[in-house]
């Protein structure tokens, strides 16, 4: 079986991770080429007291600009946006970024479900959602929303995740198109930046 490739109409990728997520996200971000054509939104659960140094940490490994999200910032293709600690990150019409201090959802703020649901509303079939390692079930309902809106779902293969609960939960209710190791997810994301002729699978899906 050849490696899966993403259809060309994907213009945004939303990723969620919890325990073990710094390493997993670091690995995926390092795989993104400079010409990556989609916007990337990330929610990573972390202690709210921690100063947000993640953007710097990830920037050191990523060819794309990595920023902590600012409210009302217009979304740019090829940019990576991180939810700030203790704020929900939402995608609003435009598309532009929005933040909120609404109640934590399932004890989490930022919440992966909130990002996924609002991004699904804005991007519909142009969105890919990815649920990575973590010890709770955040992201599962959000991934259902992404798929219901016509978007694609990917989940880190629980057998390869540092903490399998979160990808397992998403796998259980969202029937994602892709269940892959981090290497597989990295290749999947890179397929979006590959020249059209080099990804026959993408052509087929058009």
């Amino acid at each position, binding site marked *: 079986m050849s490696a899966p490739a993403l259809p060309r109409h994907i213009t945004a990728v939303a990723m969620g991770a919890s325990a073990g997520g710094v390493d997993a996200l670091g690995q995926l971000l390092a795989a993104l080429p400079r010409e990556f054509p989609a916007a990337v939104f990330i929610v990573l659960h972390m202690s709210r007291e921690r100063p947000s140094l993640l953007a710097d940490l990830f920037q050191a490994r990523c060819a794309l600009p990595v920023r*902590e*999200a*600012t*409210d*009302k*910032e217009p979304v740019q293709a090829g940019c990576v946006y991180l939810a*700030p600690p203790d*704020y929900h990150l*939402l*995608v*609003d*019409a435009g598309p532009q970024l*929005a*933040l*909120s*201090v*609404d*109640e934590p959802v399932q004890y989490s703020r930022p919440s992966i479900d*909130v990002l996924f*649901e*609002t991004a699904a*509303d*804005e991007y519909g079939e142009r969105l890919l959602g990815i649920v990575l390692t973590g010890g709770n079930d955040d992201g599962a309902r959000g991934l259902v929303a992404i798929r219901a809106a016509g978007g694609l779902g990917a989940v880190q293969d629980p057998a390869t995740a540092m903490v399998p609960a979160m990808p397992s939960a998403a796998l259980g209710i969202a029937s994602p198109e892709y269940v892959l190791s981090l290497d597989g997810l990295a290749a999947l994301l890179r397929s979006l930046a590959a020249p059209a002729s080099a990804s026959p699978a993408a052509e087929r899906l058009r």
Partner: protein
Amino acid sequence: MPHRNFDIELQLLVDAIYLKYHYDFRGYAQASLKRRLTTAMSRFDCSTLSQLQDRVLHDPSVFQPLLDYLTVQVSDLFRDPAYFLALREKVVPLLRTYPSLRLWVAGCSTGEEVYSLAILLREEGLLDRSLIYATDINTQALQMAQAGVYDIDRLPGFTENHRRAGGRTSLSDYYSAAYGKAVFDKSLRKQIVFSDHSLATDSVFAEMHLVSCRNVLIYFNRDLQDRAVGLFREALCRKGFLGIGAKESLRFSSHAEAFADYALADRIYQKKDLP
């Protein structure tokens, strides 16, 4: 123009609320508003926003709980301690030069921000010559703010925030605890005026030395943000201060040029001395 059912219904509901109850959510940021209304739909057992609209139009008792869903923001005392530390270290020395002070906490919800500011001013010896205007559109939240009663289990967090905000006294000096609640001191409230005010529809009511409006603007779209920041600009005295939320920015505001960065990392701006 919205074309999906939910978006159409959202616009109709917001119009209905405005016409019937004169609360204006037309300029609220869509993504948060949608999420809150989706939560409200299940709370009120409605499967569509049209059903919710029907309920709220014909049963006024539904409006207040719906308003709570749309507006109430639970904060903490001294949320973002660095903000209050910056007020204390960088803004208070200038505030001290005025014989009397007027401060405005816009969108005060249940009052956590107001008491934080009052305690800080008390510690700096400024509260007695200060008048703090605490405003919100939700009169029930205002009543809770005025009561100044919080669950006792929130106090350890408040106390730690207060310490990190450079607190010079013990937070327990300002409240008394009983039956699982902490009641904040009446003497703080003597200098606070609680008042119903909408950043969407009302105008400026007094000249201010400091406006603190944190994590309110994120719920507004750009036009409404412009209106609100325009009110702050108009209300502030020459070289008055504006504090906003840690992840908010004046960068995208049409009033950006009227303000100078004062303590940018802590989102404190100073109104420029323009002619």
